[in-house]
């Protein structure tokens, strides 16, 4: 706890487990719950139209566990699965979900201090919403691993349940755009940028990330824009000279 007194210490506290962070972790992902429910229902409805069985839908929810990738894959699902069509689905899934690699990488300084049998299973729960909430908690000096895992388990449980009413009510829910469901995640992302704002200098990498992502999105089909843009932003931050003041307070 010695480094907790300094502002923005270079080395943050190592991870630990204490149950008092479970509820705050769940509250932090609260804003994601309506969107996750609606998104899961819309996905269930789409699967019903595409003639998947409910058991199959639940297997996909439980194991693939990547909402956007599931949507993209099912929309592109071929009439007959072949070796090459499965490879195409795998590549599609990879391009959508490769952002999880960046997210788990960014959790390394925090969860890397835990034993592997605790840290790697935790990374299986990485999603946009859970990662965003945990990142903000960490940014404020938090280190309790239950904050991330508790919220992430609730998101997972809701995701498993959400497809069922959607599957059963398929006709009414087929167009998620009608209810603005496609805005749930972008709105949450946008809301997260406001507290992350630490002045224009720290936002230069964001501008780089945004510009590169726009360019890649325009030039290259698919979802590569996320990873290329995000890496460009991070690399630009590494290339910038250190901003000194307050950031280099290192304690042994």
């Amino acid at each position: 706890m010695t480094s907790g007194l300094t502002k923005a210490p270079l080395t943050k506290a190592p991870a630990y487990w204490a149950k008092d962070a479970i509820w705050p972790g769940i509250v932090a992902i609260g804003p994601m719950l309506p969107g996750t429910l609606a998104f899961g229902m819309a996905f269930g409805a789409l699967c019903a139209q595409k003639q998947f069985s409910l058991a199959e839908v639940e297997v996909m929810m439980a194991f693939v566990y990547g909402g956007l990738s599931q949507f993209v894959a099912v929309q592109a699902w071929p009439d007959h699965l072949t070796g090459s069509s499965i490879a195409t689905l795998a590549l599609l899934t990879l391009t959508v979900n490769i952002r999880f690699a960046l997210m788990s990488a960014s959790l390394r300084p925090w969860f890397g201090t835990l034993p592997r049998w605790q840290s790697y299973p935790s990374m299986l729960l990485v999603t946009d919403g859970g990662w965003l909430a945990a990142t903000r908690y960490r940014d404020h000096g938090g280190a309790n691993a239950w904050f991330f895992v508790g919220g992430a388990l609730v998101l997972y449980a809701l995701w498993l349940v959400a497809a069922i009413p959607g599957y059963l009510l398929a006709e009414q829910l087929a167009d998620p755009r009608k209810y603005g469901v496609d805005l749930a995640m972008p709105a949450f992302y946008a809301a997260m940028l406001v507290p992350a704002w630490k002045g224009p200098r720290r936002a230069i990498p964001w501008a780089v990330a945004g510009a590169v992502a726009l360019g890649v999105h325009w030039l290259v089909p698919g979802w590569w824009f996320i990873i290329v843009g995000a890496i460009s932003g991070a690399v630009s931050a590494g290339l910038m000279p250190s901003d000194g003041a307050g950031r280099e307070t290192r304690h042994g």
Partner: protein
Amino acid sequence: MAEALRGDVMLAFAVMTAVTVAARLGGFWLMSYVPMTPRVRRMMDALPGSIIVAAALPVAVNGGPVVMFAIVAAIAATIVSRNDFIAVIVGMAVAAAARAAGIGG
């Protein structure tokens, strides 16, 4: 009635799962080989905001006026209320209302 769990569908799900698990664990695993120099630390600090902007900006720009307006409304709601929940509801409600009013996009 359709077969409950078709073999070829399960195979496709297994491949999709493997790819997704590899992404979730791979980034975390790779970072164990990267020494935490001040430069790497600056990159890691900039990574979350960069992911957010790279993921959301192209969607906003290409989503047309409804999506852009909804995202601006969500940001405004965050600044005013400092509450993510209100921001998400405002974003979704603005988009749903605009589309119900017949505005495309």
